């Protein structure tokens, strides 16, 4: 296979939008190659048949397949290159991608730029160290979603869900609609990690109880799950002895967090952020390796696909500029001052982690962040080298919702001579 100007790893919402935007910026359709490991484009959206996608992008409520379909249609209309059933095995620092596919065999292809859009995976039972047996009937929420929505099988009848992430909440409703009994949702934290609208529409509307500060401590049943022990947890998040309760069920669903899938990035030597689990990027979504960009859930876990799309547009545009030789800050020749961003006082992380003082910063540039707890009536403060530049009042902040703060002209000026940009919370 000939070299490509841009190779995009992943044909989900991030990869599709990045490809379309690269094409908008003048990269020919056949100079772009999307490598998708599944049998069709669309990524995880294909199994997200519930509504709620597209409110920000299109001002209408769409299902996952509908949302993905808009982008897939454009990719196909424009004949942008893509290959399904294609699994990338490695990415080299000099931008060579090795992949396999049943039709193309084993290939090594050079790319002018690479966009990482591999998405994320779910945390597992193993990662939680839940004691007990290892029977059938334990699924991550996404796996159960695939069985129900793609394969057409109900994985179980009496279900306990651990974790109140959005997929778990969506699946509580989905399984109920399909005839299963969802007995309860247990959440380790004293608050849910899911979107408020999902708590209302997926649990409250179906009288499914949410047990905050509860966890599953043991799994029972040798062949199939027969029950789980749940217990209340204290402030240290450890189970409180004496609060254990046995719940008879045949299924345990886990919705306990998403992890960006960065094994390829790590092996390529790309610097990763310890907190997000994704690459360290600058305002153009460029990683520590010039010409390699990242966007979507492989970069940091998003709550809404609409924001993935917008992020991917930025990555696609910057990758196009990189290969056409337009100045991209931090490109082949790094120029100007590089600033770091940081989160403080309740801000867990800030993305992008790097900003270029002489870069393409504008009042459109936003710093994305998540908070580490539930907060009410706080200022979101943007400061440069400790000097407060802007503050915005927020009535309510929660870890489940990604927040952002836009740069102002004043901030952009301050960044030109600064070293560190900080996003923090302060009392209102």
């Amino acid at each position, binding site marked *: 296979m000939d070299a490509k100007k841009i190779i995009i790893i992943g044909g989900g919402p991030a990869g599709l939008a990045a490809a379309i935007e690269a094409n908008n910026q003048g990269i020919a359709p056949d100079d772009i190659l999307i490598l998708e490991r599944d049998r069709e484009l669309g990524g995880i959206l294909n199994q997200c048949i519930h509504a709620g996608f597209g409110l920000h992008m299109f001002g209408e409520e769409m299902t996952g397949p509908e949302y993905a379909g808009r982008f897939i249609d454009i990719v196909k209309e424009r004949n942008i290159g893509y290959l399904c059933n294609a699994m990338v095995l490695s990415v080299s620092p000099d931008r060579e991608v090795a992949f396999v596919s049943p039709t193309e065999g084993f290939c090594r292809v050079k790319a002018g730029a690479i966009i990482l859009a591999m998405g994320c995976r779910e945390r597992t039972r193993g990662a939680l160290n839940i004691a007990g047996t290892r029977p059938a009937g334990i699924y991550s929420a996404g796996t159960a979603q695939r069985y129900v929505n793609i394969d057409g099988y109900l994985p179980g009848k009496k279900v306990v869900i651990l974790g109140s992430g959005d997929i778990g909440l969506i699946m509580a409703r989905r399984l109920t609609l399909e005839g299963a009994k969802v007995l309860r949702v247990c959440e380790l934290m004293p608050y849910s990690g899911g979107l408020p609208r999902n708590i209302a529409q997926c649990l409250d509307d179906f009288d499914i109880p949410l047990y905050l500060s509860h966890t599953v401590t043991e799994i029972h049943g040798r*062949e199939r799950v027969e029950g789980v022990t749940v217990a209340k947890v204290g402030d240290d998040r450890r189970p409180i002895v004496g609060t254990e309760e046995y719940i008879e069920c045949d299924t345990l669903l886990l919705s306990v967090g998403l992890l960006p899938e960065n094994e390829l990035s790590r092996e390529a030597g790309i610097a990763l952020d310890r907190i997000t689990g994704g690459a360290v990027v600058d305002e153009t979504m460029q990683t520590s390796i010039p010409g390699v960009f990242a966007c979507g859930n492989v970069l940091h876990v998003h709550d809404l696909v609409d924001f993935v799309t917008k992020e991917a547009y930025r990555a696609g545009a910057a990758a196009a500029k990189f290969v056409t030789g337009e100045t991209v800050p931090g490109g082949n020749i790094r120029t100007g001052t590089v600033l770091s961003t940081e989160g403080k006082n309740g801000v867990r992380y800030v993305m992008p982690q790097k900003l270029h003082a002489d870069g393409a910063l504008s009042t459109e540039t936003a710093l994305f962040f998540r908070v580490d707890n539930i907060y009410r009536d706080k200022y979101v403060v943007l400061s440069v080298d400790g000097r407060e530049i802007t503050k915005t009042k927020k009535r309510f902040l929660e870890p489940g919702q990604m927040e952002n703060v836009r740069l102002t002209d004043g901030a952009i000026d301050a960044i030109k001579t600064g070293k560190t940009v900080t996003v923090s919370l302060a009392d209102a």
Partner: protein
Amino acid sequence: MKYDVCIIGAGITGAMTARKLAKYNVSVCVLEAAGDVAMGATKANSAIVHAGFDAECGTLKAALNVKGCAMMPAETKELDVPYKQCGSLVCAYSDAEIAHLEQLYARGCENGVPDMRIVGGDELRAMEPNISPDAVAALWAPTAGIVCPYELCIAACENAVINGVQFKTNFRVTNITKENGTFAVTDGNEIVYADYLVNAAGVHSDEIAVLAGETDFPMHVIPRRGEYMLLDRSEGKMANHVLFSCPSANGKGILVSPTVDGNLILGPTAKAIDDKDDTATTTDGLMEVQNGARHLVPTVNTRAVITQFSGVRPTPVYADGDITKSDFCIRISETVPGLLHLAGIESPGLASSPATGEYAVELLAKMGLSLTEKSSYTPGRPKKIRFRELSDEERAEVIKQNPLYGKIICRCETVTEGEIVDAIHRPLGARDLDMVKRRTRAGMGRCGSGFCSPRTVEILARELGVPMDTITKCGGNSVILNGGKK
């Protein structure tokens, strides 16, 4: 159907015995209670081929361990099973423990373990940069190695099958009778007849002895559960060798070891339990594993855990009650002619297994089994493609020959559809998700099989010609999709 030899139990001991018997013109049938081979202690242990300095001098255990360890490189090569002779280090933290190392060293020398040496703290740290700063010396045994125990067992069984050995899985022996010199072994549905009976039933070997009419069995089995944690490949380089603490009365203690597949294994605990088939993990046990591992490698990242599991080892307790003197209970029955016990085989049963298999054949010959070598014997097993380990050129070639090798199903372990289809159609082919996992590593990775299990279920259903909702995780009632078709 009548056989010359019936082996009860398809763990590593039964499997290696079957493989060694398959060289001869004898008919052999292996009966296994579980749905697959390697399902008892063989499936869940430390995956280590011990050098042989632990066992008391003069025991059968010592002799078989040292011989088995020496046989392992050739044995694994013949069977196309990955083996790494990485060596082991027993680490000492005090003068008292150094004295213990010296005892182990002396014992090892007497057992015939080659090339051992006691290394000082500096050399230890050069060999193991992540070892605890409190470790002051170690016993270095370069002949120890690491192997995937169930893969070795499956390979030995596949080898036995292609050389004519019959396997019957899901055959839980419920009764054994003997008439006119012939054993009749049944699971309640089917009867298998044989002239010679080999008891290799692991934790259940004392029960099988009784069923077979043994009246002079010298021991009973205490099931001792060992819990483990398996860490991500990202942690595989935290140890270069098998790392032990100084042993205690309860066994060799918690170890830290690389696995042959590149993961890091931590464990085991050693707890006597009542139920021989109870392989649940416990909160306390997993805590003990983590603490024990940190004793050796303080910076081990136990958050990078992929899975926890436990195995039940058959600890033999002899009538005199001294657990530390226990040897393998390998003996020709004195009360039931034609009955051979390969019982009470706990650690180092895996390391000993090729030698145990050969020894069992010798004993059967002694018992009167006539052995003539088979001209058609094949030492290996059907070729197995491990896509993950192929070079670029080899990958291109296998995909050209079969495009299914170009379709990755398990992204964490880079397992292709071609490998899964092969696992289903091989001798003793996979019938459930866990059988596929043990044969291909699909589902063994960090996503906990979240991505590949729906695809593997689909492939199993397609290849076996059955609906998806009949596919199980591990046989029996472990149906994956039990809520019905929409």
